[in-house]
């Protein structure tokens, strides 16, 4: 017993070393788990305070390019509003008795937030925003910027949240080729923050370079038809039964600044439907 104690005392620091190494491995391999503690993410109070202070300063750096893309998206939306107004007016004159101006319940709501910390150079990237549970942000909500989708909420603090960036090898998104029903799975494979791949596109899918990839809307995370990227070309995938497409992303992840978190009012209802056990009447 004394020998054992002596041994432990003598090599105590190396036990400590082994403990730290083990602890690091535990942390390292828990990156996939959804149940990250807030304290161990950049959404904790100290690091979000530091990051917000620095983003107050660096936030001005990309304003010009952000302004330009906002202007572009604003012009497009204005066009669309005019178009739709025109269409509604037309329908009302033609079929005033059948088309009612029904006020559709809004399904999606947006929470606007500012990115306070961002990275693009790791294989698994995350960024944090300055809105948290107190503002209605919950885990699993989708996040978009003015150009397209950017990520999914992963950890929420009281006033900050951490988002899994689209630039994260472990995260896949359900997408489709715009104007068709051919769906695939969007994955980023490291390296260039502009390039991602759409996997599992059926072989009979028709497309050409320059077609837009949009969200499929098959989840409660993102509404359908949000732009994701532009098809560059077809590449040889790992599975011969499917196509794989190389895509240039529409969002500039190096200059993320203002994003919107998407709240789906139907989420609870849809989730409960999926868990619903059908019991036929006897």
């Amino acid at each position: 017993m004394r020998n054992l104690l002596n041994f432990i005392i003598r090599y105590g620091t190396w036990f400590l070393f082994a403990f730290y190494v083990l602890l690091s491995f535990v942390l390292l391999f828990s990156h996939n788990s959804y149940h990250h503690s807030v304290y161990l993410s950049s959404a904790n109070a100290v690091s979000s305070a530091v990051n917000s202070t620095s983003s107050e300063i660096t936030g001005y750096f990309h304003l010009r390019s952000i302004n330009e893309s906002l202007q572009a998206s604003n012009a497009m939306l204005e066009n669309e509003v005019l178009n739709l107004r025109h269409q509604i007016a037309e329908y009302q004159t033609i079929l005033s008795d059948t088309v009612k101006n029904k006020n559709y319940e809004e399904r999606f709501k947006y929470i606007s937030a500012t990115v306070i910390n961002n990275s693009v150079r790791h294989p698994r990237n995350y960024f944090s925003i300055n809105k948290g549970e107190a503002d209605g942000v919950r885990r699993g909500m989708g996040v978009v910027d003015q150009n397209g989708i950017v990520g999914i909420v992963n950890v929420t603090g009281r006033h900050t949240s951490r988002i899994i960036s689209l630039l994260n090898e472990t995260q896949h998104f359900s997408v489709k080729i715009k104007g068709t029903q051919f769906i695939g799975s969007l994955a980023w494979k490291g390296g260039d923050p502009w390039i991602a791949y759409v996997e599992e596109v059926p072989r009979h899918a028709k497309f050409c370079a320059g077609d837009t990839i949009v969200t499929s809307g098959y989840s409660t995370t993102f509404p359908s038809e949000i732009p994701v990227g532009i098809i560059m070309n077809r590449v040889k995938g790992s599975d011969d039964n499917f196509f794989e497409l190389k895509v240039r992303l529409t969002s500039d992840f190096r200059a993320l600044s203002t994003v919107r978190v998407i709240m789906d009012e139907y989420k609870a209802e849809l989730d409960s439907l999926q868990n619903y056990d059908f019991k036929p009447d006897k």
Partner: protein
Amino acid sequence: MNKEIIKFALLFIVMLLAQVLICNHIAIFNVAVPIIFIYFIIRLPISLGNGILFTLAFIMGLSVDIFADTLGVNALACTLLAAMKRPIYYAYVPKDDKTKYLTPSISSLGVGVYCKYLVTSVGLYCLMVFTIEYFNFANVKEIIILAASSCLLTFIMLLAIDSLIIRKS
């Protein structure tokens, strides 16, 4: 002694903030990343006990990880670097009573020996950190490019920081 503690506490905070606020956002040609916070581990006195050395290194790595959301990557690499600190040091410095109580720096070791000690530590760290992060031997070429370019950039920046600190003191 107290003065030393305050000096290193200050170095810890300054290096941590410089890393997470500035250097983490730099990636020259999308490959070279300055990893300057290991300067804190490199500069710790050789006479420091292993227990304190490992603990400080682990805390430093974990702090950087928490800010950068790379949980475990830097914590593991820092702990390993701390364990290698003494072997690297004695690879270039003769083992005797005089060298046992030195704090590694240009003035105590001389430019040549210090540069060798610095470049070995930085090189090993870069190799470890990118291997841990990519953790896939299919990426060997990528890891080597990242590690080599980051090592060069970090080495230059650390020499610059050294010259700043030494001029002041």
